[in-house]
């Protein structure tokens, strides 16, 4: 679904901005020393001494354990951030959450479950019966609205489509499947050319 991809891209942009700011700041600060724009930024950062100078060495050696623990912590943090960021590059995978149905006063022990994939298939099939819908993709996700992506013919008003096709089909699914509470819908519409119309 497009809005999941949109969320992934947004988080990547935030990460790139933060990383970009840090790299630019480090690079610019170092270049001011390298190009003699400033003589020193702090004792360990002095343009007249080597990069790894006595002040830097004594700063690390005086608090060696703290520096080592800090460096390991930062390293582990970078690995975790990198792995989580990399995992977000994977396109969203359709994954259905099964629905546990209410007992509704039944005295029979146990629980009844409606497979999310089966509910999605039934909803898709019902939606695709409409001549205005070319293709339907439905996903029952955990803790969120039911995600629906519809390829709809472009010359049909959205209100009619939602009120006369989507809402009744969802009502049928909720009633027949006994789904309670009724989940919300998040619908992405993709306008497509009606079949048989010349695109040229």
């Amino acid at each position: 679904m497009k809005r999941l991809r949109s969320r992934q891209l947004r988080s990547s942009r935030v990460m790139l901005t933060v990383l970009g700011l840090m790299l630019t700041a480090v690079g610019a600060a170092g270049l001011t020393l390298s190009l003699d724009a400033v003589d020193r930024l702090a004792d360990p950062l002095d343009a007249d001494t080597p990069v790894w100078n006595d002040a830097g060495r004594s700063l690390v050696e005086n608090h060696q354990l703290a520096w080592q623990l800090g460096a390991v912590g930062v390293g582990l943090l970078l690995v975790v951030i990198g792995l989580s960021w990399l995992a977000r590059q994977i396109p969203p995978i359709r994954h259905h959450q099964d629905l546990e149905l209410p007992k509704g006063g039944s005295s029979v022990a146990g629980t009844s479950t409606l497979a999310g994939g089966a509910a999605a298939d039934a909803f898709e099939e019902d939606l695709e019966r409409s001549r205005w819908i070319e293709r339907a993709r439905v996903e029952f996700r955990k803790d969120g609205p039911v995600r629906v992506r519809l390829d709809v013919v472009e010359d049909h008003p959205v209100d009619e489509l939602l009120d006369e096709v989507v809402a009744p089909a969802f009502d049928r699914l909720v009633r027949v499947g006994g789904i309670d509470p009724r989940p919300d819908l998040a619908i992405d519409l993709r306008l497509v050319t009606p079949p048989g119309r010349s695109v040229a």
Partner: protein
Amino acid sequence: MRLIIPVLTRVLSALASLALIGVGSLLVVEVVAAALDADPVLLPSDYADRVAGLAWDDRSMVTALAATAGVGVVALLVGMWRRAPLTIPVEGRSGVAIERRGLEGSLSRRLTGLDGVSGARVRAGRRRLRVRIDSRRRVAPEGAHEAVREVLDRELADQRLDLRPSVRLRYRGGEL
């Protein structure tokens, strides 16, 4: 830029995340090795001497810092570049949105079918809809502007989209 920026975002994100994993792993491995008084595991054994003798104005240092700043600026630009939305919300319908590219293609197809219009380029943003109409005629096709407006108004009303259209008409003799 509409195609390049999302691709660049993905490519840079993948590279940057791999770089973070690499730098983080290197840091952990080398600090643990140093704490155990062992030789460096991944870095050259004489890296401490090399760094100790490195001056700020050394060419390799300047190159590394310039590269760091350059990569930072590129990441910053890509991260902050204003991107077209993937979906546009439908007015008065919570949770319903229309995909931008489908909408642009649909409007473009409809406008191209109008009399005197040889091509149409539609760009939808969060609030605006920019339309460029091309005509092969030497004089501005009469009524084309109004016809385009009419189609846009009808389509935006049908799809319940709150977008402000702006139309430019290019023909062989000039532009309106």
